[in-house]
């Protein structure tokens, strides 16, 4: 069955309350954001096999081809704030999930860029990863009915959510380690004078 959604859903209410304490802000808004993404993904992952209507004996992911309007669902954006959001585009036999990752300053930008490039080069190992992200986003997944036939749906959703959490953690850890390394390097050099 094909479902339809509203166009944009802002998970804003809970977040405005927790903006009161800066320290807790991150983890307090993270949970509702990830829950919203999880439920949207679970709903969108109702895909079934669908042969191409346009070319005989071909089977293409309709969300990529986008040739027939009746096969596509309205896209949904779940956003935590302007910079962090997830775009979910559905269709009859495939969905495309694009993630925009938080990049507060220059160093986070290059770390994110390097990391995403690293993963996208290994897209064939990841099966569901797309080699190029959608415009305005940092990384994209393409999940087709073939993937859902071979893998558990709820585990696929778990994977995407865990992916989002781990990326953020990894980028901030890399930034901290880079700053720590810089401090040690400078200290070692200057203490000898």
């Amino acid at each position: 069955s094909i479902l339809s959604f509203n166009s944009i859903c802002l998970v804003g209410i809970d977040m405005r309350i927790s903006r009161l304490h800066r320290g807790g802000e991150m983890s307090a808004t993270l949970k509702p954001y990830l829950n919203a993404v999880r439920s949207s993904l679970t709903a969108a992952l109702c895909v079934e096999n669908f042969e191409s209507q346009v070319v005989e004996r071909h089977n293409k992911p309709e969300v990529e081809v986008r040739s027939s309007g009746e096969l596509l669902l309205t896209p949904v954006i779940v956003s935590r704030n302007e910079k962090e959001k997830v775009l979910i585009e559905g269709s009859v036999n495939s969905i495309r999930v694009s993630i925009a990752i938080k990049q507060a300053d220059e160093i986070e930008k290059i770390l994110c860029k390097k990391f995403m490039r690293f993963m996208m080069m290994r897209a064939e190992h990841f099966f569901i990863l797309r080699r190029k992200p959608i415009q305005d986003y940092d990384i994209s997944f393409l999940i087709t009915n073939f993937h859902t036939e071979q893998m558990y749906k709820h585990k696929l959703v778990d994977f995407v959510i865990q992916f989002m959490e781990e990326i953020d953690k990894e980028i901030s850890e890399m930034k901290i380690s880079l700053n720590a390394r810089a401090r040690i390097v400078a200290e070692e050099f200057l203490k000898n004078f």
Partner: protein
Amino acid sequence: MILLEFRNKIIEELLIQRFKSAAGGKPEGVDITVADFDGVLFHVSNPDGDKNRIRISISLKFYNDLQQHGADGYLQSVYGDLMIGDVESSYDISLEVSLENLPSNPDELAKKIALLKRNCFASVFEKYFDVQSKGGEKSTAIVHYREQETMYVSAQKDRVTVIFSTIFTDDDDVIIGKVFMQEFKEGRRGSQTAPQVLFSHAEPPQELEGTDALTGANVGYITFVLFPRHFKDPATREKTINLIHTFRDYLHYHIKCSKAYLHSRMRARTTALLKVLNRARPEVKVTEKKTISGRTFRK
């Protein structure tokens, strides 16, 4: 190993080993070319095939710049008799050691020779330190120690300024370099005796205005302000020169190390994520089944 070694380890170990074998009575032949930072080449060989003499030659692309500031004189004062006038072709300086009259402490001699590159640089610094301690001012010394990268040394009444210009080949390197330089700038909090370090990106600092210094997004300028206490006492002076002359290599070495570390982190994280994804596949159970006619097959 956080700090770079300022003496050439290969030369040192090679010479110690050769001195030892000569002391044992069996000198071995040697013909080795060694590369060092900044495009510097060393050549260790036996002149005219004589195994009892070892010649060590160094070639620096920018030796002319150093010569203008008294490099020859300084090296003469350090190495004295070891220097030979007959320099090997395509090299700038040659030292010769006779294995028959080795000093009582051959390791010390090997260490001294391994400092050859450092001593070439040291001449410029020594000259400017002396000028400053006499209270004088001196115009800028320009040493093009690498292609497109230059070192400027100048002395004022109360300080000596050393400015390095460096090129970052990769755009990401610029940002990582900025993180490092930020820490260097704030280094004075940690240690009171540290010199003042300034960093300027893309634009040369004020002191270099009017010269043909490079500009561009990938260019950085690092300024060290050295005060008399950094070079008044000879031991401190030596330490200062040791550290400053390899600064550019130190910075780039650590930038590369950080990139390698980030890469290994990314790889570890990617394998971890891959494991999570593979949990999504159901386990394939191999079972034996039987058909009505009695044939067995595995599923």
